[in-house]
């Protein structure tokens, strides 16, 4: 299946990060244009693909993960320990027939992303 999906995991607690807002944007004439905002479900995924297969096209895309409110709302986390700042991942869809799974693994002081499957 083509398109873009994500999965937000709280590697500090070893569980999905639910309720994280994700802003999805596309590079449009040199400017980032917001396409939509979605919120992760109980499994840390979005109910629907970020970019469905029938809308897949090549281009530069951006996912902004609003994890700071998530960490602040989480019990037992000191605000002083939050080092990452709403990570932004910018990536290219270079072949619209392929699928792009872009997970984000986060903790208050670390962030990891990669092309997943």
């Amino acid at each position, binding site marked *: 299946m083509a398109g873009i999906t994500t999965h937000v995991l709280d590697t500090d607690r070893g569980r999905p990060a639910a309720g994280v807002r994700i802003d999805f944007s596309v590079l449009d004439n040199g400017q980032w244009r917001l396409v939509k905002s979605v919120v992760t479900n109980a499994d840390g995924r979005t109910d629907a693909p970020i970019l469905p297969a029938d809308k897949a096209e090549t281009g*530069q895309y951006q996912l902004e993960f609003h994890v700071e409110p998530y960490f602040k709302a989480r019990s037992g986390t000191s*605000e*002083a320990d*939050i*080092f*990452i*700042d*709403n*990570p*932004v991942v*910018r*990536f*290219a869809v*270079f*072949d619209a027939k392929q699928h*792009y799974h872009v997970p984000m693994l986060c*903790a208050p*002081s*670390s*962030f*990891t*992303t*990669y*092309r997943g499957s």
Partner: protein
Amino acid sequence: MDHLPDRYVLTRRGLVATGLGAAAAASTGAALAQGTPAPAGAPAKPGTLNTAPVSQAGLSPRLTMHAIDNFHGTPGAGMVCDLAMHDGEGYRLLKTVTTAPSGRTAEPLLVDDAFKAGRYELVMHFEAYFATFGVKLPSPNFLSLVPIRFQIRDAGQRHHLPVLFTPWGYSYYRGS
């Protein structure tokens, strides 16, 4: 992963290992000239790993970084990085630096009076970095200009920012 053999043929490092470095360097250089230009001062090949880890324990408050190339298993030498600070409206460029052979910068990114609490963004030029070494990747690559966003809440503390990267992913954290 069917591009792996090509990748190694194309890297100078691989060619040097088979004794063909001198002849290949010229042709690789010509091929690279058509792609993304190498940043000024970029090394001719991926860095080598011949130093012990560096401890910064006890140093004064500062912001330092370390680029680690998990694709070649070397320090990320010659990586161009743009450091910006959020001024309330957007990120304002403070400086552009290029990592040294150690994958670190010659001077701290910020130190003394320049080291202030705030929201920062370090944009790392991944695509140019891998192009320098002739790594064969899609164009545009999955990752090209990579923003690393972090916060300094207490400028009285030393902050270290390691970034571990490949063409297909990266990781960063508050280091030591």
